[in-house]
């Protein structure tokens, strides 16, 4: 119980008051290790909230440097960070918010070659990437390693997210078998995105991670949550594990990690879930 100094009791008091979090939940958060892949539009708000929440170890994986066009939505990076590695910029902010957090910087592109090592040891992964190849790779790696993760994607005014509990709930491949053909879906850079919806979705992902760690409520397992911000419509779409899923089905064909076609798109829009 020595973790709870006066200052920490006060810092986390609004959590501790919650019946669903309490002292134990806050301790669990401190012991938890969460990886955020992509310190971009989704990863930025997620990282800020998870840091503030007192998650003991936060990993940030990103190979990019901060560009001017990022600043419209990637709120963990400031104008003064232009040119800096995103992992470094994010790590600075996280430490400034909460010195309780240990930050691990993974300054690399994730690929089939390295992802196994990157995700090893984490309790939960947040997918904040901007392309289908990475999303499928994270899904495959997390499912094979048995690490729960939150999928997320945004484009224009739309967002979608689901939480994957490997072996228990539908995985990304159960729903979207494989990436759409290159060019079928525009990327964020072509189609644009309203900055604030990155915040909406990233904070939902952070909430899912926190709920999973403290064991409160129900995560979006077997549920694809989509929203459309122009009319502010939210939809919950029930999805199921697919026995035919090449990754987690009854007769899986994927046993090894591989990279899908090179980064194609930013997800969403025409990539409707398979309906069955």
């Amino acid at each position, binding site marked *: *119980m020595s973790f*709870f100094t006066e200052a920490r*009791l*006060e810092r986390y*008091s*609004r959590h*501790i*008051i919650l*019946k669903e979090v*309490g*002292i*134990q939940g806050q301790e669990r958060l401190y012991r938890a290790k969460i990886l955020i892949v992509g310190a971009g539009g989704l990863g930025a708000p997620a990282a800020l909230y998870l840091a503030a929440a007192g998650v003991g170890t936060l990993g940030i994986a990103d190979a990019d440097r901060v560009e001017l066009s990022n600043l419209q939505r990637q709120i963990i990076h400031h104008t003064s960070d232009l040119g800096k590695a995103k992992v470094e910029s994010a790590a600075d902010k996280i430490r400034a918010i909460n010195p309780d957090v240990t930050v691990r910087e993974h300054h690399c592109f994730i690929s089939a070659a390295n992802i196994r090592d990157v995700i090893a040891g984490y309790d939960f992964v947040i997918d904040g990437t901007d392309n289908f190849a990475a999303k499928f790779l994270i899904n495959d790696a997390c499912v094979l390693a048995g690490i729960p993760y939150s999928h997320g994607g945004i484009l224009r005014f739309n967002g979608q997210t689901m939480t994957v509990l490997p072996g228990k709930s539908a995985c990304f491949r159960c729903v979207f078998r494989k990436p759409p053909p290159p060019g079928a879906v525009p990327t964020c850079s072509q189609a644009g995105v309203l900055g604030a919806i990155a915040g909406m979705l990233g904070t939902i992902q952070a909430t899912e991670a926190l709920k999973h760690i403290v064991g409160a409520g129900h995560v979006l397992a077997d549920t694809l949550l989509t929203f459309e911000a122009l009319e502010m419509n939210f939809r919950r779409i029930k999805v199921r594990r697919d026995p035919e899923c090449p990754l987690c089905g009854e007769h899986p064909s994927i046993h090894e990690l591989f990279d899908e076609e090179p980064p194609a798109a930013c997800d969403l829009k025409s990539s409707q879930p398979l309906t069955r």
Partner: protein
Amino acid sequence: MFYTIPASLAAEIDELESLVHQFQSGRLDPTAFKARRVPFGVYEQRQDNTFMVRVRCPGGAITPRQLKEVAELSQVYGAETLHITTRQELQLHDVALPNVVPILRRLLSVGLATRGGGGNTVRNITAAFDAGVAKDEIFDVSPYVFALTSRLIDEPDSWLLPRKYKIAFANSEKDSIHAVFNDLGFIAIQQKGVSGFAVYVAGGMGTKPQVGHLLHEFIAEAEVYLVAEAVKRVFNQHGNRKNRHAARLRFLWNSLGEAKFRELYQQELDELRRQASAPLTLPPQRKLPAPVTIAAVREPSSDFQLWRSRFASAQKQPGLYLVLVPIFLGNLANEHALALADFLLPLGDDVLRATIDQNLCLRNIPEAYLGNVHALVKSITCLASEPRWFGSSVACTGAATCKLGICLPRGALAAITKKLQAASLDWDRLADFKMNLSGCPNTCGAHLTADLGFFGKVARNGQTPYPAYGIVAGAKLGHGKARLAELVGEVSARDLPAFVVEFLKSYLEQSSRFASFTDYFEQQGRQDLRALCEKHRIIPGFDDDKNYYYDWGATEIFSLAGRGVGECSAGLFDLIEVDLKNVRTLRTELGTVSPGSKRDEILDELALSAARMLLITRGVEAHSEAEVFTQFRRHFIESGLVAAKYLPLVEAAQRKDTAHLRAQSADVLSLAQTVEELYGKMDNSMRFPGESAQPPGPAEPKPPRPPAPFAERDLRGVLCPMNFVKTKLALEGLSVGQRLRILLDDGAPIQNVPRSVAEEGHTIVEQIKTGGHWAVIIEKR
């Protein structure tokens, strides 16, 4: 000026000033400070360090000069509006502590005092707003109101009573001021050509309301002071100073019994007569000011005529008029108060009264100036173009600011008014119809004295609570015939506006057959109301229409969280009453219904309500039916409060074994009766016979539990919510069944921490006030 300020007041304000300084520098304990400032009419608002100041206006009287001062003070130091209270006073809100004393001094300079605005004191003496001008009054009671005020506020023992002392004067047997619902009520009457008063004593609203008892059929005018003083002395010597919830004069009357009360009273009265106490010195008859000339506004419009017919009436003084100015919820904007004061200044001193409906009434207005008044009033209130009774509804603040509140009556009133307007019926035909709303069964919104009254309550659809209103109707006022409104049913808050419109529409259609609303109520209205309740009885489930689970004006789903446990016990009793009424109704229904599924339902419901009714006294709010029975077993059967023979029945009810309940229906009834009787024997600290101040431990047959080791935390000086956080941390280190003792400050900590702890499922075994703080024992669950 209408009353004489005691010479000592200036020095007392100086003393208060030094107390303020001591408090601000931390040398005076908040509780001690509170005890000194409240009798000054200075209350702290919900927001810390923000105060309201209540100004004494006997009979609602205030001069334009005084009103102007009050409004200017409010502009400088207070909120944007003044508030008119249901005791005809004016209140300044949102005053910062350092500004309180400057306000009191400036009020003093214009002849206004706040002393007795609150606390256990002689409160503002009320009087019919039309006293002195009404055509049908017996005589003008105002001089007695002013003289009695001046006399009583000059007596030191008026500030140290066991509880508040409320006095009212009616100017005719109609008793429009509700004198019979005051601690002491004088009603002007004539006996054999001599003017005097009928006197009522020990009436009151609040918890356990009652109509006053007739103390004197008749007393001479000259004895008004003797009566008020004798009652005050009885109260002072014999009143209950221990329990403020049972301290009002009516509790003394009830506990002493009528004969003993009269005997003690007679002794005091005889003593005062022997001493030949000086009678009241009545203020000189007010002379009307010399005719003034302000430019008369002539308004021949039909708009004006309609307004005039609604709000203006001729006084007994020829050519002069009384004009009612409805003020929505009694909130009068400072600039409107100033405009009114400026308009009235040339017309004299005696031109304004506040009413107990929280409205204003202008008086002594020459007919020629009614047009001016109309122009002014239109700019002050939108109610000026509505039927008069729309503006006479009283609605307390309810759950918006009151900790006892259950519903939001002001939101409901707004919704009702909207619905009435949309119905476009001839509502003027209802003339002086009175509809009042309270946010809980306490009667701050005066629902029990209305033609149609509503009080907030919790209803449940299954286990899901929703806001509802109990419906009372048929109150009668008047010397010798007063009675409180009677309970006729309940309706969901959601359906309330529709309910009101449907009911009043139906009354209008039939009204020609009845002499008055009370006649209608007795002959037909009671049945009509019950039929309407039945029509609205079933509400949709949560998933079908969530609106029923939101109160009017609320943005969050209605819930009991934040009420009940941990709150003042008065609110707690109300919650118990909800189930109690349910139990009583079901017991009656059971006697009339024939065997079948309906009877089975009643049995189920009766067992559930009986088991749930007293759980809250143990700090338990069960969230499911099963939990109700589990907790009932633990707290009432295992503790020995309820006989163990009911255990099989409770277990059967828990597993919904309808056949068992059907076979043992006599036992269900006697269980309900047992619980009712237990409640009847509960004391004000929610203990049952045989329970000591110690925690309600298991009764004799159970082997005594080894004394659990106490962990202790002194959380005095720790603010919310850190005190709760630290309590949780301490509980974390205990195992189930172990106990923790914590010390908490009075105020927000004791109101919030135990409640929050209980909401997490732990048991509050005991909470005791010692000195200025609380010791709370918690058992970990």
